[in-house]
């Protein structure tokens, strides 16, 4: 049964874990946003000898579970603290999704925009930086937002490599106080409170960009 005292004791512990969860999400997504763009650009206009292996690696990462990758990295890359390792693995895992999102956005930029750039003799870098990417990213902003929310909800996987994120903290509290119901319910509530408004925001953004 629900024990109000246990819940009261669990709340600060769970919230302290939330800080780690949030940190992992923000840093992990930053990695994903940058690395995903890198993968998309390399696949689109990099030389074949690098585009091919990067593409193969990306689809390999995309089609294996993130938890397996966490364990593998945990074993294969010693010496990194769990949070850093978790952020990198989660970030690179999502980078492989985001690269596809970027690709769709880049493909959606009309051919006429590229032709205008040629007609103005704009250098290649400038074409990407000033013309193509701003338009591509605008088109995929809602999709990026959805992936951010989705990554946020996958941070509990980091507990398998001992990152003390929110679910890890809830679990520890649950086992020491035998109050799993309270601690996990609170963790779930915090997830809901954080991701629901974010989803609403993303949907609003989507609606605004639609016209």
């Amino acid at each position, binding site marked *: 049964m629900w024990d109000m005292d246990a819940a009261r004791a669990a709340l600060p512990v769970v919230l302290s874990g939330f800080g780690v969860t949030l940190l992992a999400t923000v840093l992990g997504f930053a990695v994903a946003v940058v690395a995903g763009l890198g993968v998309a650009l390399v696949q689109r206009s990099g030389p074949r000898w690098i585009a091919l292996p990067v593409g193969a690696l990306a689809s390999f990462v995309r089609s294996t579970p993130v938890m397996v990758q966490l364990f593998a990295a945990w074993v294969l890359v010693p010496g990194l603290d769990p949070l850093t390792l978790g952020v990198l693995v989660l970030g690179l895992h999502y980078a492989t999704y985001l690269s596809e999102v970027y690709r769709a956005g880049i493909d959606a930029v*009309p051919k*006429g*925009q590229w*032709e*205008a750039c*040629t*007609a*103005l*003799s*704009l*250098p290649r870098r*400038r074409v990407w930086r*000033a*013309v193509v990417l*701003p*338009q591509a990213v*605008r088109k995929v902003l809602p999709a990026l937002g959805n992936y951010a929310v989705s990554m946020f909800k996958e941070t509990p996987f980091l507990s398998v490599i001992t990152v003390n994120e929110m679910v890890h903290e809830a679990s520890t509290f649950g086992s020491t106080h035998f109050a799993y119901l309270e601690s996990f319910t609170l963790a779930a509530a915090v997830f809901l409170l954080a991701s629901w408004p974010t989803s609403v925001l993303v949907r609003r953004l989507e609606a605004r960009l639609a016209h």
Partner: protein
Amino acid sequence: MPTETDHGPEKVRFARVTKRFGDHTVLDGLDLAVAPGERVTLIGPSGSGKTTILRLLMTLERVTDGVVHVDGEPYSHMPSGRAGDKLVPADERYLAPRRRRVGMVFQQFNLFPHMSVLANVMEAPRHVLGLDGDEAAARARDLLGLVGLAEKEDEHPTRLSGGQQQRVAIARALAMRPELLLLDEVTSALDPELVAEVLDVLRDVAAGTDITMLCVTHEMGFARDISHRILMFDEGRVLESDAPERLLDDPEHERTRAFLRSIG
């Protein structure tokens, strides 16, 4: 095989240029010369290769065979080999400085929708010619004044009418101070009541500069006003070529007469 031709005074020369898309031949061994400062209008049924000529000059397409020359030197190709006597397809390094002398205005405007009108016009002067922000802005404002849109500099293109957008596109092309300006059906996407404002601007440009102009259009009144010469295209070849009065009022070929009747 492409061979070097004499260095004439021509601004543009097409030497036996063929362009095929798959097994469809759009240009078939075309020879064409345009003098500096000349205004040439290309007319003919759609699919007759007029637009392809402009797109080859803008390097948006590559020739299948033959050589395009600009300012008396190879343009689609570049000299190669130990003696520089062989021609190979031009690479980006060879093309970049030469392409800058060519500008183009498109049927669909192709303005950058996420930039203001002013930023659209400033973009190339700043980032290609290396002007600083103030110089580029001053040049852009001059040109926006020329096309009658000085008060719209902060607007985004999507908030302008088609005619206004096309005038911005003209200003954007002129900001590079091109020596050769390509106009590809620049009024075809416009509502009829917006055509005149764009053509008036182009008449001013034609009257006020000595830019060489190649123009694909169905506006025969405009063609008559600005052209020194009109070329009638049919099936990838020049069917006839003459001064506007002669070609429009007294064409030699029945096909030309039929075409002129069809566009009324």
